[in-house]
């Protein structure tokens, strides 16, 4: 459990701070208002007390003044005169009394009472008819009188100090109080006698009988208002200030900081948005942040430089990976990448692409004759020449060995052919003799043009180019051939799984499967030789031999095949797979006899394995070549201990004229001809006679394709020296010596005619 404090943004912090300050300001304001309220209350209490005190003094003062005035009136002659004879009482009240100074009383509200307290002449309105109960010279509240007015009376003394009557007066309180000019805390107009108040108003009870209003406390109220205004202003200034600060922090600090942080985060997460980088280039409003930003910017620049340098180095590596080390041109991998890029392009819009394949003729011979150094020089020269001719946008790829290619997007057949011909001319013009070559170097160019689409792969176009190359290589060709879009494809030239399987086997001979089929000497039924049959595996199956050789022939891989087979054979023998004493029949293309490497390897065989006799089966095709060229190596082979057989004899009805020129002792009769020996018709007779003819010429005949006992019997009868076929033994991975059913057939008639050694001797006689 990670109980860390939550990490808040700067805005959040400043917002909380602002809220805290707001609360503090509100708290202080509340405290201040509470203080103010307390003061207000104290002032009110104080003023109330002062008001009571003041009012009490004022009332006493009023009472005293009224009593004084009344006393004066009571002592006045005319008052006593009225009490004696009130004949003109009202006149006196209205005329005489008003002349007296009775300011403390309210003018005319004065009346006289007789010694029994009865008002003279029935009394005046608003004044009590009889003297109210209570002592003289104090303020009285007569029952039922006008609440605003108080009453006061004084006795009027006669000669012997006994009152002869009384004088009473209404006291108009507001009027009297206003005359005092000393009221500060009370409002004189607001003073009212309570309706319930009656009797004597004096002592502590004096004020209890009044309702009074406080005078407006203008000083304190205005001071209070000013304090409140100051408070409000101060609070607004503080809050406003902090609000401005908050906004400042938010806009000038928090937001840029937030964006800044996001930028950095995005840089960190690898999101290299251009905008992020641009925003980082804006100056920050805060100096400290600006330092950080600049540092980050510098760091980012350096990182970017490092990244770019890395990128360029990566590009260099990539380029190197795409280049052929020796020639410097692009390699097969680059070719496939570029092809895929073209496919990508073609997925948007169909594209016409031209593929030019270049192949150096007889390069293997050059390599073999002059060594690899010269071969490499030739290849480099070819690359140089082609590079000179091609546009800079066109790339040359080395697909392998002496095979080169270029891809021309958007090129039509004419353009492709023009380029091919330019290349051809430039190559012809190049002086290859500077590499100390005796013969001219020629390059064949196969050109293919096709529309490619998304679903296409390289196979079809490459197949067309292969076909064109094949045609270009044919003797008499102009060495440039175009396989047009409209032409059909030759399936053997199409790059296929079979072709690639073959190539893989050629590159690694252990991939070949060797099968051994016994070749039985008919004289004693012994499997003197085993023919080595080369097969190529295709997945779980094995490629049909006819198809296999078709590809070899079409691709002119005869020598490569023989070289690979011999390499493998050396390995097999070295591994002890062939017991001493067992002979091996090895197939050899006639073309291979011209190859020094192959001859060297062949000659090595009897030297390394003297216990094993070797029979070389050379294809009948050899008869088509100039026999003289083949004779020399064949003689060398014979001298080395090889027995030589002409394979597939009778299949192509080769001119027999060449046969005599070759030091061949054995003729291996083709299965088709073997089958004809058994027939009893013209063909059968022809074959039989032909067999007789060859035997009589001194050749030992070997029957191939013997599949039944009558066939075996027939070839034995015809004097064949050897026989081979399913009846005698199927091809197998191990050497077989038992011939099964054939053994009984052979056991019957030993025939000296069938002795190959005798034949050999005979043949030697004919030489």
């Amino acid at each position, binding site marked *: 459990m990670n109980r860390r404090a939550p990490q808040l943004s700067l805005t959040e912090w400043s917002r909380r701070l602002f809220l805290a300050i707001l609360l503090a300001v509100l708290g202080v304001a509340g405290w201040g208002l509470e203080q103010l309220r307390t003061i207000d209350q104290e002032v009110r209490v104080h003023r109330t007390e002062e008001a009571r005190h003041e009012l009490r003094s004022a009332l006493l003062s009023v009472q005293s003044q009224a009593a004084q005035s009344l006393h004066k009136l009571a002592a006045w002659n*005319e008052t006593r*005169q009225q009490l*004696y004879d009130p*004949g*003109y009482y009202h006149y006196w009240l209205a005329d*005489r009394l008003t002349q007296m100074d009775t300011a403390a009383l309210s003018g005319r509200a004065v009346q006289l009472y007789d010694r029994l307290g009865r008002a003279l002449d029935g009394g005046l309105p608003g004044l009590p008819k009889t003297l109210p109960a209570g002592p003289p010279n104090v303020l009285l509240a007569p029952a039922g009188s006008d609440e605003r007015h108080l009453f006061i009376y004084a006795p009027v003394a006669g*000669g*012997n100090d006994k009152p002869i009557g009384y004088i009473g007066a209404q006291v108009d309180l507001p009027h009297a109080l206003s005359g005092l000019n000393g009221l500060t805390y009370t409002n004189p107009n607001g003073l009212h006698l309570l309706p319930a108040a009656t009797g004597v108003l004096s002592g502590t009870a004096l004020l209890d009988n009044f309702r009074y209003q406080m005078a407006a406390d203008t000083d304190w109220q205005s001071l209070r208002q000013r304090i409140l205004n100051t408070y409000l202003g101060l609070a607004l200034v503080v809050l406003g200030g902090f609000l401005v600060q908050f906004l400042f922090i938010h806009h000038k600090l928090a937001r840029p900081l937030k964006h800044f942080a996001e930028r950095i985060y995005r840089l960190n997460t690898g999101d290299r948005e251009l905008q992020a980088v641009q925003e980082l280039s804006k100056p920050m409003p805060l100096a400290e942040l600006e330092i950080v930003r600049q540092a980050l910017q510098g760091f980012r620049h350096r990182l970017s430089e490092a990244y770019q340098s890395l990128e360029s180095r990566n590009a260099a590596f990539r380029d190197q990976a795409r280049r052929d080390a020796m020639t410097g041109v692009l390699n097969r991998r680059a070719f496939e990448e570029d092809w895929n890029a073209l496919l990508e392009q073609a997925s948007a819009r169909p594209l016409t692409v031209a593929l030019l394949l270049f192949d150096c003729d007889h390069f293997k011979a050059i390599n073999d004759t002059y060594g690899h150094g010269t071969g490499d020089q030739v290849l480099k020269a070819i690359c140089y020449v082609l590079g000179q001719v091609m546009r800079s946008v066109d790339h040359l790829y080395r697909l392998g060995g002496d095979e080169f290619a270029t891809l021309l997007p958007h090129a039509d057949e004419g353009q492709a052919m023009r380029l091919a011909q330019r290349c051809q001319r430039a190559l012809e013009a190049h002086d290859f003799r500077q590499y100390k070559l005796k013969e001219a170097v020629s390059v064949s160019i196969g050109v293919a043009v096709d529309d490619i689409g998304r679903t296409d792969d390289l196979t079809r176009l490459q197949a067309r180019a292969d076909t064109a190359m094949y045609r270009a290589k044919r003797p008499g060709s102009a060495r440039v051939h175009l396989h047009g879009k409209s032409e059909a494809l030759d399936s053997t030239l199409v790059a296929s799984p079979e072709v690639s399987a073959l190539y893989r086997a050629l590159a690694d001979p252990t991939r070949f499967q060797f099968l051994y089929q016994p070749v039985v000497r008919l004289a004693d039924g012994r499997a003197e030789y085993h023919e080595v049959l080369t097969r190529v595996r295709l997945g779980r199956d094995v490629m049909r031999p006819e198809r296999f050789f078709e590809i070899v022939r079409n691709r002119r891989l005869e020598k490569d095949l023989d070289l690979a087979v011999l390499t493998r054979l050396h390995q097999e023998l070295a591994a002890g797979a062939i017991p001493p004493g067992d002979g091996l029949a090895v197939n050899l293309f006639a073309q291979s006899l011209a190859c020094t490497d192959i001859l060297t390897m062949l000659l090595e065989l009897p030297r390394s394995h003297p216990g094993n006799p070797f029979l070389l089966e050379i294809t009948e095709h050899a008869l088509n070549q100039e026999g003289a060229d083949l004779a020399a190596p064949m003689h060398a082979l014979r001298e080395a201990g090889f027995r030589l057989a002409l394979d597939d004899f009778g299949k192509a009805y080769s001119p027999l004229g060449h046969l005599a020129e070759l030091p061949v002792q054995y003729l291996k009769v083709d299965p088709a001809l073997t089958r004809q020996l058994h027939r009893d018709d013209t063909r059968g007779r022809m074959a039989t006679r032909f067999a007789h003819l060859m035997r009589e010429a001194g050749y030992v005949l070997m029957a191939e394709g013997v599949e039944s006992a009558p066939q075996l019997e027939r070839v034995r009868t015809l004097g064949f020296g050897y026989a081979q076929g399913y009846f005698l033994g199927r091809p197998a991975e191990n050497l077989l010596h038992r011939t099964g059913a054939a053994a009984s057939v052979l056991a019957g008639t030993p025939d000296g005619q069938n002795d190959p050694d005798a034949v050999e001797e005979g043949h030697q006689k004919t030489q």
Partner: protein
Amino acid sequence: MKTVLRVLFAALLMLCALPLRAQTVHLMLPSGLEGRAAYHAGRPGQGAVLLHGFLQTGDFSTLRQLYDGLAEAGYTVLAPTITLGVPDRKENLDCGSLHLNQIDDEAAEVQAWFQWLTRRGAGPVYALGHSYGARLMIIWASAHPDDRVRGLLGVSLIGADPNLARAWTGRLEKAGAQVTVLPAASHFMNGLHQFALLDWVLARLRDTGRS
């Protein structure tokens, strides 16, 4: 210097007069009003009633001077204040006040006071009036003739009008009254004239007493 001496003398006289300070007496008058008077009991056998002028009181200064002088001279002196309808009147009555009393009422009051004085055994009584009081005195004497009245003295009997005074002086002398004129004296005999008046009054009383 003379003036200073005179003032000092006057002050000495005042001091001497203090023990003679008047006693205030009240009397229920026939009208029902309570009367008031200043009274000094002197030697028996000779008394004087002093009557004040119009709306004044028995304490009026002119009269007071005479009262003190007479009291000092040993007379029993009574100076009543005519009520003018005001019980126990102590002050002058305002001119504008109600005047409901009649001169007969006033004469009756004088008679009441005269009887009160005679009951005290004052002996022969002299009546002395100032201004209107002199006229009231004559009216009273006419209305209530009495042997105990030894003589009537009127001070400022006639108003201040010189013409009127000349006319009346002749007439009074014709009627047998002795008239003395103090030249330059005011109606109220202020200042030094008051001493002259007192001297004159005492001389007259002595004259009358011997005769």
